[in-house]
C-alpha cells in the first residue's frame, strides 16, 4: 500500500512537468514546428520524387532557378543563377541555355570536403557541380526517375551508356572515384563549361519547359566529394541519408523514425551577403492579389531566412498530430477528416478556432482528378463513332463533381471544367463546360440518340454493360467508385466495378483491356503543356506506355498541341488552348472531376505562410513570433490536476475500512 501511494505520488510529481514536448530552453527560439507523416524515401536530389522527399530537399539544396514565392500564375526567378536564361537557337534545330552562376556561393561545411586532404571543410560552388548533378541523372547506378526528360540534353543518354559499358568491361573502373569515372566516360556534348561560373546546356530540340525542371531538386548541384565520401561503407552514411547543399538550411539531425531538424546554414550566400539583395534571398515586395490584405507582404524586402531552426516530428496518425496542433505545439496542421466540422464552417474558419487566433489557408493545388474512357474501346471509345461520343457526353452529364467533393473530401476541391487547374496559364475562371453540369434530362436524351434509350442496349435488350476498372481494392476506393456507378445507374446503365490488384490493373491497361477508370495528375511544373500532353496521341498508354491513359488520339488536338507546347505564354497560345478545350468538351475522353484544395490551419504566430503545390523552398520565407507562441501555449495547456488527488483519495477511502477491521481483529 505504501508502494502504491509512492508510485501515485510519483505520477503526480511527474504530472507537474506538463505536456510540453519540447525542451524548455527552446521556448523562446525562432523554431518552426511541423509534423511529418512519412519520412523521406531518399535525400538524393537526383532520385527523390515524392512530396516528403522534396519538403526537406528543397530547403537544403538549391536550384539554378526558383519560383516566385507569392505570385500566381507561378513565375520563375533566378536562384543560384544570376538570371533566367533565354534560349539561343543553334544549327540543326538545337537550342542552348547559358546559366551564369552567382559567384561566392558556398556549400554548407561538411566533413566530405576534407576528401582531398587540404583540411578545408567547405568550398565554392562551380559550374561543374551543376554538370555533375545532371550527369548523375544519366548514371544507371543512381536510378533517377527523370532520365526521359533530361535525355533531351545532347549526349546525356550516351554518356550514361558509356559509363555503364566501362564499368562492365574495364576491370577496376567501377572502383575509381566517382568524379574520375565521370571524367573518363565524359564529356557530355550538351553540358559546356565556358568558365567556372557558367554552364551552357544544349538541347537536341526546343523544349522551353526545361527551365521549370531547373527549379526542381533533380537539377540541384551536388559536390562530387559528397557522393564519393558518403558511400555507406566503414560506418559512413549513404548519400541518400545526408544532404550537402548550398541552401538556406542544413540538415542538423536526420532520424527518420522520429525527428528531423534543419538549422540555419551560416554559410548560405543570403546570410553572408544580405547586401546582394539576391531575388531568392530577399522577401518579395509584390504578390498575387489579396496577398497584401493577408499580411503576406509585411516582410517585403527583408533578407531571408527568418527562422533559426525547423523541427519536424514523425506523426503517423493524424489525430494526435492535430491535437498537438490545437495545444500549440505545431505551428500549422492539415485538418483530419474526423475533425473537419470542428475546424471549418461553410468554407471558413469555425468560430471556436477563430477565437484562438488561427487562420485558415486554402489553396487549390495544380492537379486534376478525372474519370477517363479508354478511347480504343469498341463501345465507349472512338471506334463507336457518334454513338460512343453521345454515350460519353451522357455519362459526363450524370456526374455531379460538387456532390462527390461534399461526400468524400469535405468539399476540399473545386469542380474541374477542363484539365487545366487554377494558377496555370490557360485556366479560365469563367469557363463552364456544358457537359460538366449535372443534367439528367439532357443525359437521357443523348443516351437515346446514341441508341441506348433508357440505358438499354438494343442488341441484348438489357441495360448496357460497362466495366469500371481499378487497381484499388480498398473499402474507401470501392465507396468512391460506387458513387459514379450509382450516378450512371440513374441513366439505366449497368456499370460493374472490376477491382483487381494493382499489377493486374497495370497489365489490363498495357493491353488496352479496360473501359472506364479514375485517375489523377499532379503538375511537375506550372505549364499547361504538363496537363494537355496527357491527351496527346504520342503519349498513348497502351501504344507507347505514356501517361495518356485514355488513349485519346485526335489529329486536330495533336496539331494544336504541337503549336502551343513550345510557345511563350502569349495570345496565340491561349487561343490554341481554348481550341483544344473545345475538342475535349465535345469528345469527352475525360470526365473532369476536381482540382483538390489544400486546407491548412495556421496559428496566429506563424507569418509568411503561403501554400504551394510545387516543390518550393518555403521555410526561408516563414517566420514565427516565439513570445506570442509561448504565451498561448502556457494559457492553453494548464494541467487539470484534481482527478489525481480525487483518485488517490478514493483509493485510501476504499482500503481504510478493511485496514481498520484488521487492526480491530488483531487486538
Amino acid at each position, binding site marked *: *500500500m505504501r*508502494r*502504491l501511494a509512492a*508510485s501515485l505520488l510519483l*505520477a503526480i510529481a*511527474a*504530472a507537474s*512537468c*506538463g*505536456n*510540453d*514536448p*519540447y*525542451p*524548455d*530552453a527552446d521556448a523562446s527560439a525562432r523554431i518552426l514546428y511541423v509534423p511529418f507523416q512519412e519520412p523521406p*524515401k*531518399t535525400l538524393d536530389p537526383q532520385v527523390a520524387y515524392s512530396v516528403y522527399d522534396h519538403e526537406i530537399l528543397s530547403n537544403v539544396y538549391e536550384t539554378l532557378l526558383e519560383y516566385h514565392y507569392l505570385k500566381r500564375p507561378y513565375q520563375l526567378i533566378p536562384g543560384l543563377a544570376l538570371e533566367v536564361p533565354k534560349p539561343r537557337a543553334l544549327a540543326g534545330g538545337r537550342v542552348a541555355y547559358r546559366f551564369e552562376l552567382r559567384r561566392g556561393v558556398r556549400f554548407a561545411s561538411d566533413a566530405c570536403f576534407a576528401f582531398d586532404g587540404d583540411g578545408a571543410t567547405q568550398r565554392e560552388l562551380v559550374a561543374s557541380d551543376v554538370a555533375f548533378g545532371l550527369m548523375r541523372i544519366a548514371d*544507371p*547506378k543512381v*536510378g533517377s*526517375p527523370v532520365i526521359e526528360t533530361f535525355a533531351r540534353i545532347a549526349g546525356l543518354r550516351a554518356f550514361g551508356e558509356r559509363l555503364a559499358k566501362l564499368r562492365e568491361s574495364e576491370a577496376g573502373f567501377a572502383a575509381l572515384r566517382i568524379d574520375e569515372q565521370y571524367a573518363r566516360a565524359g564529356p557530355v556534348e550538351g553540358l559546356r563549361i565556358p568558365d567556372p561560373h557558367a554552364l551552357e546546356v544544349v538541347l537536341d530540340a526546343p523544349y522551353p519547359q526545361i527551365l521549370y525542371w531547373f527549379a526542381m531538386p533533380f537539377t540541384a548541384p551536388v559536390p562530387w566529394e559528397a557522393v564519393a565520401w558518403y558511400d*555507406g561503407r566503414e560506418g559512413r552514411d*549513404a548519400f*541518400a*541519408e545526408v544532404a550537402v547543399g548550398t541552401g538556406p538550411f542544413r540538415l542538423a539531425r536526420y*532520424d*527518420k*523514425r*522520429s*525527428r528531423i531538424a534543419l538549422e540555419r546554414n551560416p554559410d548560405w550566400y543570403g546570410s553572408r551577403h544580405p547586401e546582394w539583395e539576391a531575388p531568392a534571398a530577399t522577401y518579395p515586395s509584390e504578390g498575387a492579389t489579396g496577398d497584401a490584405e493577408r499580411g503576406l507582404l509585411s516582410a517585403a524586402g527583408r533578407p531571408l531566412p527568418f527562422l533559426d531552426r525547423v523541427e519536424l*516530428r*514523425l*506523426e*503517423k496518425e493524424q489525430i*494526435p498530430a492535430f*491535437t*498537438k496542433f490545437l*495545444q500549440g*505545439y505545431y505551428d500549422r496542421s492539415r485538418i483530419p477528416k474526423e475533425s473537419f466540422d470542428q475546424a471549418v464552417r461553410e468554407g471558413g474558419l469555425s468560430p471556436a478556432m477563430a477565437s484562438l487566433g488561427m487562420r485558415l489557408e486554402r489553396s487549390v493545388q495544380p492537379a486534376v482528378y478525372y474519370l477517363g474512357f479508354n478511347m480504343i474501346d469498341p463501345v465507349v471509345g472512338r471506334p463507336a463513332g457518334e454513338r460512343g461520343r453521345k454515350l460519353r457526353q451522357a455519362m459526363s452529364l450524370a456526374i455531379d463533381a460538387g456532390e462527390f467533393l461534399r461526400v468524400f473530401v469535405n468539399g476540399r476541391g473545386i469542380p474541374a471544367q477542363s484539365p487545366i487547374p487554377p494558377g496555370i496559364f490557360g485556366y479560365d475562371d469563367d469557363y463552364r463546360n456544358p457537359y460538366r453540369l449535372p443534367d439528367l434530362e439532357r443525359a437521357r436524351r443523348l443516351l437515346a440518340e446514341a441508341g441506348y434509350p433508357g440505358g438499354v442496349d438494343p442488341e441484348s435488350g438489357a441495360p448496357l454493360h460497362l466495366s469500371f476498372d481499378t487497381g484499388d481494392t480498398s473499402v474507401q476506393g470501392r465507396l468512391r467508385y460506387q458513387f459514379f456507378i450509382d450516378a450512371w445507374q440513374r441513366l439505366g446503365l449497368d456499370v460493374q466495378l472490376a477491382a483487381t490488384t*494493382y499489377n493486374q490493373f*497495370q497489365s489490363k491497361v498495357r493491353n488496352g483491356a479496360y473501359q472506364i477508370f479514375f485517375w489523377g495528375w499532379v503538375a511537375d511544373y506550372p505549364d499547361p503543356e504538363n496537363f494537355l500532353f496527357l491527351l496527346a496521341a504520342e503519349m498513348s498508354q497502351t501504344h507507347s506506355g505514356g501517361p495518356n491513359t485514355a488513349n485519346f488520339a485526335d489529329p486536330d488536338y495533336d496539331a494544336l498541341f504541337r503549336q502551343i507546347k513550345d510557345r511563350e505564354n502569349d495570345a496565340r497560345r491561349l487561343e490554341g488552348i481554348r481550341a483544344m478545350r473545345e475538342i475535349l468538351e465535345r469528345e469527352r475522353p475525360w470526365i473532369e472531376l476536381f482540382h483538390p484544395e489544400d486546407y491548412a490551419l495556421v496559428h496566429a504566430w506563424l507569418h509568411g505562410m503561403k501554400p504551394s503545390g510545387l516543390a518550393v523552398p518555403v521555410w526561408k520565407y516563414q517566420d514565427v513570433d516565439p513570445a506570442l507562441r509561448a504565451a498561448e501555449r502556457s494559457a492553453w*495547456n*494548464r*494541467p*487539470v*490536476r484534481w*482527478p*489525481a488527488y480525487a483518485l488517490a483519495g478514493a483509493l485510501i477511502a*476504499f*482500503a481504510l*475500512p*478493511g485496514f481498520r*477491521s*484488521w487492526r480491530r481483529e*488483531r487486538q
Partner: protein
Amino acid sequence: VARWLLRRTAWGAATVLGVLLFLFLLFFVYAKPQDVARRALGEKAPPEVIAQWLANHGYDKPAFWNPAHPLDTMLADHYRRMLTFDFGKSDADDVPIAKRLRHGVGPSLSLTVPLFLLGLPLALALALGVAFFRDSYIDRVGVVACVLAMSVSMLIYILAGQYLIGRLLRWFPISGFDPDPSVIARFVALPLLVGLLAGVGSEVRFYRAVFVEETGRDYVRTARAKGAGDGRVMARHVLPNAAIPILTNAVMEIPFLFTGAILLESFFGIPGLGSITVDAINANDFATLRVMVYLGALLFVAGQIATDVAYTLADPRVRLE
C-alpha cells in the same frame, strides 16, 4: 551443471537454427525477392534497376544449390549473416539494420525497463495486499477489478489514456519521444502509466492465487503458531516460498525488454525496436523482419535457460541435471 547447461544450449541452438530455416523458406522461397524489389523501387522501375537492386542485396544468387560455388547461395548467406550478426541493409531504404537496431535499443529500454521495475513490485505489493485481506471486501472487489482490467484490450487503454490524460487533463504529451534528458520523462510517463494499468490486472490475479495457495500451507500455520505477525508471515515466509512461479513469470520477461513493447511504441510514436517490427511489416522490409524474428527466437531461448538457472538460486531443492 556444466553438462546440463551444454545440453540446454544445444537444444536452444537447434531451435534457433530451425527458426532460421523457417524464415528462409518464408522470406526467400514463399515471398520472392523480386516482389520485394518491386515494392521497394516502385511500379515504374525498369528491369535493369531491379536487377541492380537484387544484386546489391545479394538476392540474385541461387536459393539452395550453386554447382560452381556450393557456399555461394542465398541459404548459406542467410545462415552466415544471421549467425555472425552481420545483418546487412534494410530492404526498404538501404539503411544498415545494425545501425537501426542500435538507435532503437535506447528508446525501447527507456520504456520497458521502468515498466518492468515498477510493474513487478507494484503487482507483487497489490497481490500481497489482496491476498492478505483475502475473503474480505477488498479481496473480492480487487479480484473483480483485476478481471475487468484484464478483459479490456490494450488498444482501449492506449486510446483512453491519450484522450483522457493527454488531451483532457493535459498531464503529459499525448505521444512522441525525445531522448533529451530534460524531456524524456514526460514522454515516457503516459505509455508507462498505460502499460502499468494494462498489465497489472492479470499479474495481480496470478500472484494473488500463488500467495493464497501458499498461505494455506502448513509452514504458515507453524509460523503463526510461533507468534509471527501477519506482516512478517507475508513478507518473510510467503513471499520467498512463492518465488518459483514469480521467477518463471518475471525472468522470462527480461530478454524481451530489449525487443520493446510493440503496441505502446507504435501508438505513442516511440522509435524503439517494437515499432521497427511494425514498420518493417508495413514497408515490406523483409530483411529487417527476418532479423527481428531471429533476435526474438534467440532471446526466447536465452530467457528459458535463465529461468531454469534462476530456479536453482531460489530453491535449493531444484537441481540442474
